């Protein structure tokens, strides 16, 4: 089952976990980060065209998903820990600076990676999920959008509740989008569902909500934001509002006829957007404050 839906080439032990990943091609490195409840397989339509265009593609299964380790404790899924997985993986591969591309939770990781590790980021491309600063003051509309509801539901939802009646609740929440027929199969594997839910539990628990983080460092890398009109969960303002957190060149693209899963629904367009963006802009260099 896994073998059919896997392009993985290797596994590395970094930051205390085993991370399985795709490493393909030579050239400027591009790191592709998937979201919930995907794996590297989300990027299956983009990997080869990027390789053919002269990039080295690194597409990991983030911890808790696919072929990577699935720690069962919630604390293991703190965003900073996961950012460190990506740092560790790129270091392991001898990559100092890469283009970072993320979708859904992977976009959230990409944003954080970009403002915590500005020197390790060449270009940044984020799909669906905007800068966390936009979310810290959600509008009424965003609160009503279903993904935002999920944000609040998943931390409290039990594995048992999602699994019961043939995964009926899970199927209702996911609808017929993304790899909806594959997800329950993956999540039914030992420890997989708990690991996936821990992403929400660790980062969107009520306690985490009370901690309002507002002093995000600016993103210096050239940044491409992509949002799809068929996203039932996220509002366009989440992405367009991200512009004010980006100090580098900012581009915004709206994709039509795509659900939340843009890389699956408009594969060619996503490839085209990435090829037309990665490596085309110049970053604002981080300034180091002189000691007096």
């Amino acid at each position, binding site marked *: *089952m896994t073998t059919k839906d896997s392009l993985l080439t290797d596994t590395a032990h970094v930051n205390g976990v085993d991370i399985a990943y795709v490493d393909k091609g030579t050239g400027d490195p591009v790191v592709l980060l998937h979201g919930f409840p995907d794996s590297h397989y989300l990027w299956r339509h983009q990997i080869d065209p990027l390789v053919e265009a002269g990039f080295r593609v690194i597409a990991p299964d983030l911890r808790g998903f696919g072929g990577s380790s699935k720690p069962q404790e919630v604390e293991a899924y703190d965003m900073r820990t996961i950012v460190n997985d990506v740092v560790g993986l790129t270091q392991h591969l001898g990559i100092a600076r890469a283009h970072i591309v993320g979708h859904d939770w992977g976009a959230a990781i990409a944003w954080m990676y970009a403002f915590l590790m500005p020197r390790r980021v060449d270009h940044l491309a984020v799909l669906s999920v905007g800068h966390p600063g936009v979310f810290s003051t959600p509008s009424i509309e965003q609160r009503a959008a279903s993904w935002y509801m999920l944000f609040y539901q998943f931390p409290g939802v039990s594995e048992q509740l999602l*699994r*019961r*009646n*043939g*995964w*009926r609740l899970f*199927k209702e929440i996911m609808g*017929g989008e993304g790899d*909806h*027929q594959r997800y*329950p*199969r993956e*999540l*039914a594997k030992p420890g997989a569902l708990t690991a996936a839910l821990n992403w929400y539990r660790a980062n969107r628990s009520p306690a985490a909500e009370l901690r309002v983080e507002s002093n995000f460092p600016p993103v210096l890398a050239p940044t491409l934001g992509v949002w799809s009109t068929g996203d039932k969960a996220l509002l366009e303002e989440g992405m367009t509002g991200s512009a004010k957190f980006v100090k580098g060149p900012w581009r915004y693209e709206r994709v039509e006829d795509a659900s939340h899963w843009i890389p699956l629904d408009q594969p060619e367009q996503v490839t085209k957007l990435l090829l037309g963006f990665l490596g085309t802009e110049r970053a604002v260099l981080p300034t180091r404050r002189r000691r007096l």
Partner: protein
Amino acid sequence: MSVGRAGLDQAGVDVVVVGGGIAGASAAANLAMNGLSVVMLEKQESYTDIVRGEWIAPWGLREAQLLGVEDAFGVGGSWEIREWTQWDETVAPDEAETVDMTRFVPGVGGPMSFPHHTVCELMAEQAEDNGATVVMGVQRAHVTKGVNPVVRYQKDGVAHELRPRMVIGATGRGCTIGRQIGVSMATSVHHWGGGVRVSGIDDWPMDVQAMGTEGDKMFMVFPQGEGMARLYINFPTTNKNRYRGPDGTARFIADFELDCLPDRGKSVYAAATAIGPLKVWPSVAMFPEQSIVTDGVVLVGDEAGNADTVLGTGLSCSLRDTRSVCEVLTGGDDWSPAAFESYLAERDFRMKRLHFGADIIAKLHCEFGPAAAERRRRARALMAENFAASVTGLLNMVPPEDVPDFGFSEFFAERLFRETV
């Protein structure tokens, strides 16, 4: 995946399961999970839609939970159906009653409809993941019963032989293993049935299943989520060739244009696209004439005898069989026929009730014409007046032993059909 020539003297195989359907694959998965050495033989090269049962009762799902194979249903494309609307030519479409099916078995929910082949495939994978050997594309399986049973089969033209401690025969209605060990079946055919899996019925409510009779056919719609469903039609034996020919599938789907459905069934007949083959079959009830347990061999599922498919309990029965047999095999070292006595007794009791219920359902819903319609109208009136009269329908929800006894009396059947007053 395949047992090589070494299989000839492969020592230490505990159980060979012949047949990888719901019964066989669930047995293989459970036994392997419990540490037994299992080889499962399946005729198909790979699992495809060959039109088998795709509806499982809540009590069958409870059996799946007890066997530890419920996730194969959930992640193999199962869809929980919550309501049952009883459209019929004897009632106006908007007056048909709806039953909530989710509350009959605690901890289970409603029945499920699912693509049979993907669920079997996942159970087979589960068996393999737990150490079982699964051999696909098996031909000419042959079982010799005895204290030391022998299983011979061919794979890619090469002969193989296995000497397990026990053989589970689960080859379905063909009763291949049963015949080899000397079990014959008495059979009766009440009507014929046909089925096809479809997609595109996006306007059909996915929470709702339909079963009803109009004209010369009894129709069923079992939603599988995402606009998919399994459609069945039961029809008189005299008309068994009605879906023959190249446009049989189109005529089958067109037959869902029915006066008794809302909007004349437009959400089905005008929208459905077949996503699998159409198959028709005689709806046979089978009664074993010898014991289904003998030295070294035990039969389960349809191979052990089954009720008319119209009842829809075939898969649930299979899983109950599997659980009973697996409990014996994992519960102790005595695998002699005597150890299976409680299985035989329970199955005997269960099948009597299911046959009784299936006869009532078949007579009520799979007989056609004005007199039959009048009988249904009367029975419906009786059920509306006294809910207890729908007791037979409980067989689709709760296990047969939990259905009140009065539902299995001749008095009740006669009363329902008003043959005596």
